[in-house]
Structures are given as structure tokens and as C-alpha cells.
């Protein structure tokens, strides 16, 4: 199973602040600041909890399948920095 199949959600300790380049995500628990480097990533992150998997969220957000691999890599990294988590 890859991260594309995982049911993810935004970590409840995380606040997201939209910025022109994407957004800043701050985890109040581990005090880490993470950059979401594209507005599409922000949309996807915010809707993760409404869909059964990351891939389903990408579909719902109208992200072209040619970009799914790069989203998979990005969300793998957001998982390890505890911005998102499995539900």
C-alpha cells in the first residue's frame, strides 16, 4: 500500500496559514514550521479528511494524474513531519 491509498487527515495540532506561495503549516505540538509549496497542496491537505484516501482527495480536487507521484512524495514528507497523519 502506498501513501496514495492511505486515509489521511490534517493533524489536529496543526494550523495552516495561506500565503502567496502556498501556505505555512505550524504544528503546535512539536513546534515545527513546514512550508506547503503550492496552493494545490493546501487545498488537498485541507480536504484529506473528507475522502477515503489521498488518491480520492486528489481526484476530488481535480489534480491531474500526471502530478500524483509528486503529491505522493510531498504527503509522505508531511506525514513524517506530523503535519498530516493516518486516521
Amino acid at each position, binding site marked *: 500500500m502506498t501513501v496514495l491509498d492511505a486515509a489521511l487527515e490534517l493533524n489536529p495540532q496543526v*494550523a495552516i*496559514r*495561506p*500565503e*502567496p*506561495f*502556498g501556505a*505555512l503549516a*505550524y504544528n*503546535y505540538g512539536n*513546534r515545527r*514550521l513546514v*512550508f506547503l*509549496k*503550492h496552493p494545490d497542496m493546501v487545498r488537498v491537505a485541507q480536504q484529506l479528511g473528507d475522502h477515503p484516501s489521498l488518491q480520492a482527495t486528489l481526484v476530488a480536487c481535480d489534480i491531474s494524474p500526471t502530478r500524483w507521484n509528486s503529491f505522493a512524495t510531498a504527503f509522505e514528507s508531511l506525514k513524517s513531519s506530523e503535519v498530516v497523519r493516518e486516521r
Partner: protein
Amino acid sequence: MSVESLVSQLKGGLDAPICLTWELTYACNLQCVHCLSSSGQRDPRELTTAEAKQVLDELHDLQVFYINIGGGEPMVRRDFFELVEYAIGRGIGVKFSTNGAFIDAEKARRLASMDYLDVQISLDGTDAVTNDAVRGEGSYDMARRAMDNLKAAGFGPFKISVVVTRHNVDQLDEFKALADSYGAQLRITRLRPSGRGADSWHDLHPTNAQQRQIYNWLLIHTDPDAELPVLTGDSFFHLNALGESLPGLNMCGAGRVVCLIDPIGDVYACPFVIHDEFKAGSVRDAGGFAQVWKHSDLFLELREPQSAGACSSCGSYDACQGGCMAAKFFTGLPLDGPDPECVNGYGDLTANGVDAALAPKPSMDHTKPVRITLGATRTPSATLVRS
């Protein structure tokens, strides 16, 4: 998006600062020789509790995630806990810097009971002689007592904050061991020639050989994946010209991602440039802090692409970014040229024809007058006042 393009976006400014420092008061029980804000005496124009809360409301609306509180000694303010609790209640995490004088057992327990609060105890030597020469007599014991109290209260990993100087650079391993013994996190930052630091800079700033020593030490100890990596506040990016980059954004954030609010509400580009030339406005002006951050002429100018000036022909510019604006300004160097601690030696003041006497002085000085009683038994009222 690559790191480079992210940095170029950040240089264009953000909707609100990432890292905001707020000096709550110019009052301080100490008179450190390198104090960035020349603190000592309270300024009568200090923001009131109500004004400070209004600023916090604004920072909440701007989604500022956390603030760095400093001073002076912030715990001198009688409403210190009230303001910290108010900030946390509004979802703004607080990191505050203190010399520890007021962290007794009871205060340590109170601090330990609060979420989203970080404490940073300043210490500039691993022994009283080295520390007290910079921070004043008794300040080493004061800091260690605060650390003991925080540990006993179960605060968890507080921070020990060190300004690295010519005299404590050989103690880096000892600082790390001290932090480890408390389960604390070590923070090492760069000395700046700001505030009273302008006067002590030439005696305290590390030599060129020591710069390399610092760089090599930081390379080993700042691994972000370590459990408690040594923090630097991104203050050593001028050393990146020595090789591999240290962790961090590697850019001057002044007016772009950081700024300073001083005790009377004036907003400066960064904590190291309390000078009229870098004052962008005041939180007391119409429109408050947001107006200053988003629209002040100074901040808009800082967000424009900056010229590398004399550094443009140097192959290290991409790595070091020309160093620190404040360090150049207060040593009298041009802002679009090398840092006074340029590792290639291009910032040498003499070679640049800088007359140290003409370097800009801080616009404000809250240093306490030093009263030395002369021949107390003979002359009843002879005092020397040095401001």
C-alpha cells in the same frame, strides 16, 4: 518548488511575519555589555497592558503562530504572566528569553503548567568568570538557579541560549554537556554589534579562525533530525561561504519574514536594528501592526530584490548572501557589501576604509546611569554619572 524558489518567494514578503520578536520592556536587572536593545531603565512610554493585548488580538487575526518575547527582562513587567496567558489563550505560542532572575520554585511550577510556552535562559559562559564578565556579577548563579528550578518543576526541555564570543567559543562542548545534563536544548546565536554590542563588538566578536571553529561545530550539532538539535536562529548563514550550508533558510529575514516590536510599540525590521533608519512605524499608528507590516515604505523596500553590490563578483555570495544587515550597518560598512565577519576577509574594516568613530550609534539608549561614589567619607555628594 525548489528551496531556492521558496526563498525567493519569502524574500518578497509574507502576509504576516513567521517570526516576530517583541521586547516587552527596556527595564532590566542586568546590564549585559552586548545587549542588543541597550536595556536597563524602563521607558515611560511602554505599551500598557490593554495596548499589549490589542496587539496580541491583531497577531491572532494575522495567524502569527508564535512570538518571541524578550526585553530588557520581560519578567520585570508586572503583567508578564497576564500577557503570556492571554497570548496562549489566543492560540499564539510564546517563547521568551530571560536571565532567570525571577524564576523561583513557584514561578517555575507556574511556567511548567502552561502549554505552548518555551523558556530560554541566557548564559554566556559555562563558568561564572566567563559569563559574568559579559552579563554582570552574579548572573551565572542566577541563571543556574533558574535552570535548577525549571528542572525540579518538570518543565521539560527548556532552552539555554548562548551568544558566542571570542571568550566562550572554546566552551561549546561544555555548553552542550550542560544542556544535556538538564535535558535542555542548546541555542547558539551570533554576536551583533547592536545596542551596547556596538561598544563591546571589537573585544568580543570571534576571530576569523574561531568562525571556522564555530562552523565546524555547528555542522556536527545542528542536524535537524537529532532529538534535540542545537538551534541557531538561522544566525550563522554568513559562515555558509565555508562550505556546505548550515540548516535554515539562509537568508536575511528582516522585514520579510521577521520583525521586531519594541517596548513602546515601534516596529523595526529585525531585533538587531533598533535604529531610526530601520523603524517602519508603530503599532500605535492608525491601522496598527498589520498596516506597518503590509504597507510601510521600509518593509516594501526590503522586499524588493537586493543588490549584491561589492559582493557580486565573489563566488561565495550565493552561499552567504552578503551576511547580516545589522552587522554591516553598526560597524559602518555599506549594506550592499561584505559582512564584517566575512570568512573571506573582505569585510575587514580597515581595508574598507571604515572609520569606527563614524559608525551609526543606536537611536535609543536605556542604559542605567552608573553611580560611583567617590571618597564617600570626604565628599558627601560627589557622584559620577555615566549614561
